[in-house]
C-alpha cells in the first residue's frame, strides 16, 4: 500500500484516480493546484504524485522541477498524467526525472500498472 497525492485541476479526474487507487488499497489525497500540492507536501509525505501538466497557475513541469530540487522529497515518485501524450512529452517526462508517464484517456488498469511499475521506494 502506498500513499498517493493526485494533483489535477479537474475534480472528476481526481475522483476517478481516488476511486481506482483506493479500490486497490492505496491511500489517496488530492490537490487542485500545484501550489496547494507543494503546501501539502510540506506537512505530509507521499510515495507517489500523479501530476497533471496543464493546470491554472503553476504547471506540472514547474512542480516536477521543484520536487526534484527538494531534498526532503527526493524519495517521492512523480507520475506525469497528461492529455498531451506525444513522444516529446514522454521524453521530456523521463528526461526531467519523472518515474512514469500516463496518457489521458487511461483506463483503471493502466493507472494501477504505472503505479506498480514504478520502483519501490528505497530504504
Amino acid at each position: 500500500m502506498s500513499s498517493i497525492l493526485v494533483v489535477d485541476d479537474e475534480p472528476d479526474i481526481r475522483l476517478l484516480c481516488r476511486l481506482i487507487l483506493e479500490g486497490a488499497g492505496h491511500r489517496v489525497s488530492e490537490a487542485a493546484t500545484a501550489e496547494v500540492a507543494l503546501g501539502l507536501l510540506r506537512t505530509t509525505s507521499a510515495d507517489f504524485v500523479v501530476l497533471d501538466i496543464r493546470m491554472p497557475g503553476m504547471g506540472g513541469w514547474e512542480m516536477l522541477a521543484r520536487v526534484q530540487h527538494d531534498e526532503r522529497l527526493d524519495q517521492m515518485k512523480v507520475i506525469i498524467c497528461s492529455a498531451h501524450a506525444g513522444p516529446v512529452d514522454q521524453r521530456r517526462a523521463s528526461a526531467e526525472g519523472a518515474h512514469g508517464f500516463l496518457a489521458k484517456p487511461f483506463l483503471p488498469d493502466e493507472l494501477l500498472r504505472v503505479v506498480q511499475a514504478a520502483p519501490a521506494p528505497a530504504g
Partner: protein
Amino acid sequence: MRLDLDGRVVAWNRAAARILGSRSKLASGAPFIDAIVDRDGWPVLLARAINGERTEGFHIEVQQGNGRNIPVVIALVPLRDERDRTVGLSLVLRDLSEQVFAQQTLAESERRVTRAEALALTGSFVVDVHGSAQWSAGMYRIHGTDPAQFTVTLADHLGLVLEQDRGRVSKALEHAMSGEVPPGVDHRVRHTDGTVTWVFMAVEPRLDARGQILGVSGVCQDITARMASETALHDALRREQAVSDELRRVDALKDEFLATVSHELRTPLTSIAGFAALLRQAAPERADLVEPIERNAGEMHRLIQHLLDQARLESGRVILEPTQFVLADAVRSVVANTATLLGQTTVFVDIAPDITVVMDVDGFGHILRNLLGNAAKHAGGATIVVSAQVTDGTVIVSVADEGPGIAPEHQEHLFDPFFQVPGEYRSVRGTGLGLAIVRRYVELQGGKVWCESTFGSGATFYFTIPTPQSDSP
C-alpha cells in the same frame, strides 16, 4: 611644283611626282587643272594668286596617273620678281589620303560605337583631373540631355544624379580619381524633362605611361527596364512572402487550436471511459449498459487521434527519428496504451522476442494503433492477432481480425482518405482516415502496406519495415 601664270606646269620635283604618279597626264606644259577632279574652285584660286594672294590649306582631289583620286591639301603662293610683279606660282601639294583614311576609319568606328551605345543603352565618358569631361553620344541619351545645350563637367554630371544617390556616385568617382577601381554604382538620374531613370556606372582611373593619374574613364548603362523588372519581381516576392507568412501563422494557429481541442476533449473522455470501467467492476450484471459507453468512448478517442494525426501529416512537419527497438516490446506497449480504443477486444501478440527493427517509434505507434483501432471497430469483441515474420531482411508485421472481411472490389480503396465500405451491414462510423494515416506513415518510412481478406472470414493487414543494409542478419 612651279606653274606659269596660265596655270601650266613648268617644273615639278620628285615629291610632286610621287603624289601624282609617274604616269600622270601632267607633262611639262600641261595645265594643272587637268589633274583636278572637282575643278570649280581652281580658277578663282589661280586669279587670286596672280593678284599676289597666298592660299594655304585648300582641299582638293587630284587624279593620279593610275586613275585613282586622292585628297590633297594645296598651298598656292605667287612668286615675285624684284619689282614685286608676279612672275610665276609655286604649288605645294600634301597627300592627305593616309590621314583621310585614318579619319574615315575613326569616323566609322565612332559610328559603330554610337550605334552599339544606342542599342545597349550605354555611354562612355572621360574626366580629367580638373573636372572637365567628354561624353559620348550615348551619355547624353542616357542622361536625357542635349549635347548642344549641355556643357559637361564633373559637377554638371553629378548635378543630374538624384540627390539621394549623389553621394555614392561622387564617392566612386573620387576613388577612381585617387587610383582605385571602385565597384559599380546603380543610381538614378533626372532628365531635363523631369523623367527619372536608373543608371549603372562603372569607373576606373586613367593613367599615363608612367602611371600618373590623368583622370577617370567610365561607362554608364541605362538599367531602368532591368530595375523595373527587378522591382516587380521583388514586389511579387514580398507579396508572396506576406501570403506565406500569413499561411504559416494560420497554420500555427490551427495546430495550437487542434492541440487545445484535443486536450480539452481528452480530459472529459478520461472521465467517461474511466468511470464506465469502474461501473463495469461495480455492477458486472449491467455490462450491457456499460458496453455502449465504452465503445463510444473508444470511437471518440479514435476521432480525436485521427484529427491530430491527419493535421500533423497534412502540415508536412512529421519528423521521423529512426531508432532500434525490440518489436514485441513496442507492440505490447502500443496495445497497453490503446485500451480505451479497443474496448472489450482482446489482442494476442505473437512475435519472436529477438526481432528488432529500426524505425521511428512514434510513427510505428501511429501505424499499429490505427490498424488495431480499425480491426476493433470492424471485428469488435473478437480476438486480434499481431504477428511478425522476417523475409530477406524485411520485417512484415500483420494484424489479423476475425471480422466480416472485405469484398475484393473494396480492398484496393481501403487506404484512400475518407473511404468507407459502402453499405456495410453493421453501421460502422468513423472518419475514414485511419487507414490513410497508416499508409502515409508506412510509406514515409519506406515500407508497404496491404490487406488480404476473404469476404466473410476476417481480414489481415500487413506492413513492411525495411531493414537498414548493414543490419541485415
